[in-house]
């Protein structure tokens, strides 16, 4: 039985179709990565599955409970960590945990015991009796996740758990999520970092403009895009078109050009002896090669191939439009 099952979720906000028929399911004790740029609909999916939002159509079950029809019962089975660390700054870490435990209807001693255990497991023992206002960003996130685990949820929802964290805090958050996964926590993780999904998720769903555009394991997705990449960087972007033409016989998929960097990446089946061949060929054609190299495909390539645009670019655009809308 699946811990989470959603079929045909749609949601519209005014003119914007936030979701246009999203299906997903998570087997127990697995981590599903929901990957997409800002504004793709990831948070909308999470908010529907956590009963915060009603879908316009479609159906979602958590632990077999319909989240729209029996939302309070469904909320007893989930833990949610949103994009902002939702902790009460005026209370201590311990009090925050105990408070949420009480709202899960644990008895007082039980809530305190759980709070105490979780502080220990999340490396917050020493600061547990300090007011949260003085916590670092990483500590707040850890407390936030601890709070979503206090009711022993069947499913943990982590909505962009590393957004806004510095690199060190991000690494320790990854280690934490990996440990939770090893302990058998069914998790839905949203992220706009391809690296993050690659590392943490058993299965990945790529979502763009409110629709699922690909699903599979990280390896399956990488295979879809071709095994490896040949990257050629030129002195000048004006020669890129000619390079693409010359490399076409070697290519086994769509190339990706980056005008700004004057480079092009071509998926190839084999890389054996390819570098000297390519250098000789381009040189013979009188082109100005700066660098030729091979690298393994990343989820960035997957995203580019699937959507035709880079994940990060879209995120930037979203931020820009949000900013201009705000001003």
């Amino acid at each position: 039985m699946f811990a989470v099952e959603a079929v045909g979720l749609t949601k519209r906000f005014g003119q914007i179709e936030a979701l246009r028929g999203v299906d997903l399911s998570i087997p127990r004790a697995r981590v599903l990565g929901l990957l997409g740029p800002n504004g793709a609909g990831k948070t909308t999916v999470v908010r529907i599955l956590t009963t915060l939002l009603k879908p316009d159509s479609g159906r979602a079950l958590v632990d077999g409970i319909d989240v729209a029809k029996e939302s309070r019962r469904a909320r007893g089975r989930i833990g949610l960590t949103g994009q902002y660390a939702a902790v009460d700054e005026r209370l201590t870490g311990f009090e925050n945990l105990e408070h949420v435990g009480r709202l899960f209807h644990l008895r007082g001693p039980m809530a305190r015991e759980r709070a105490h255990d979780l502080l220990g497991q999340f490396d917050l023992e020493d600061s547990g009796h300090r007011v949260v206002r003085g916590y670092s960003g990483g500590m707040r996130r850890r407390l936030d996740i601890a709070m979503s685990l206090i009711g022993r949820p069947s499913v943990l929802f982590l909505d962009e758990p590393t957004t806004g964290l510095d690199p060190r805090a991000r690494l320790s958050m990854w280690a934490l999520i990996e440990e939770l996964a090893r302990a058998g926590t069914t998790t839905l993780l949203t992220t706009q970092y391809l690296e993050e999904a690659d590392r943490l998720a058993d299965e990945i769903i790529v979502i763009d403009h409110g629709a699922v555009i690909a699903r599979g394991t990280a390896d399956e997705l990488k295979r879809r895009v071709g095994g490896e990449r040949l990257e050629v960087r030129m002195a000048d972007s004006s020669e890129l078109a000619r390079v693409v033409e010359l490399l076409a016989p070697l290519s086994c998929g769509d190339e990706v050009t980056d005008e700004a960097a004057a480079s092009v990446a071509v998926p190839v089946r084999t890389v054996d002896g390819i570098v000297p061949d390519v250098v000789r060929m381009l040189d013979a054609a009188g082109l100005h090669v700066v660098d030729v190299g091979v690298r393994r495909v990343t989820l960035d390539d997957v995203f580019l191939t699937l959507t035709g645009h880079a994940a990060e670019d879209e995120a930037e655009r979203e931020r820009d439009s949000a900013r201009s809308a705000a001003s």
Partner: protein
Amino acid sequence: MTAGTERCTLVEPSAEAPDARDVPTGAIWLLRDSWTEARRHLRAVPRSPELLVFATIQPIMFVVLFVYVFGGSITVAGYSSYEQYLLPGIFAQTVLFGSAYTGVGIAEDLSKGLVERLRSLPMYSSAVLIGRTISDVLRNVLTFVIMFVVAYIVGFRIEGTLFEAALATVLLFAFSYAFCWIQALIGLSVKSAEAANSAGFIWMFPLTFVSSAFVDTANMPGWLQPIADANPFTVVTNATRALYNGRSPGSDFWIAASWAVGITAVFAFLAVRRFMRAARH
């Protein structure tokens, strides 16, 4: 981070039958959830004493200003001293101003994503608002006690029976509670705590000054008098003033009580409805 082996206790894949974790329902749980929420806010009170200090200084300042600065120039017929007339009005104004924290606190919880978390818990959602309003009234009680002591020092006396004084105090807090719900609606409607603060306070100045709290409405210009007399704040002030001075409040008591119940009913309904909607977008 501790070793991975200990982590196994963190999330036990539901060993018990799923139904064992079902969510309790019923009015008693609504009250428990509300009290749990109220306790969250009350725990924070001693940690920000500055809030309490300001909430106390302001009424003390008003008592001192009105009694000593204006007291000599303002005479109110039928009272043994201006203190006996003025202080019930100051009490009423203070507990009313105290309700503004409700809106500020709710706006703050909303902007920090705390409401989102609470909405994802198996609690009764309306307990978030009920708990907040209850805690604000309790904090108001603390302010009231301090103010009452100051009032006593400047010469205010309970001239009626203790029962009448208790009745007056209960009426004041019923009124204050009702206004917490107005503030709750404001807090849910604005975008930030700062906005909730301004939007919550601005209309309370005319409400409390165009009333019988500080002066007899009979001395106001003719066009203002009917407004001041109909002002629910005048009604509640008159009722509590009568009770503290050992007089019969007459119909004022019941009209004031009806205002308190009516405002609570209407605004609690509106606020809870708005809360559900705000959280669903």
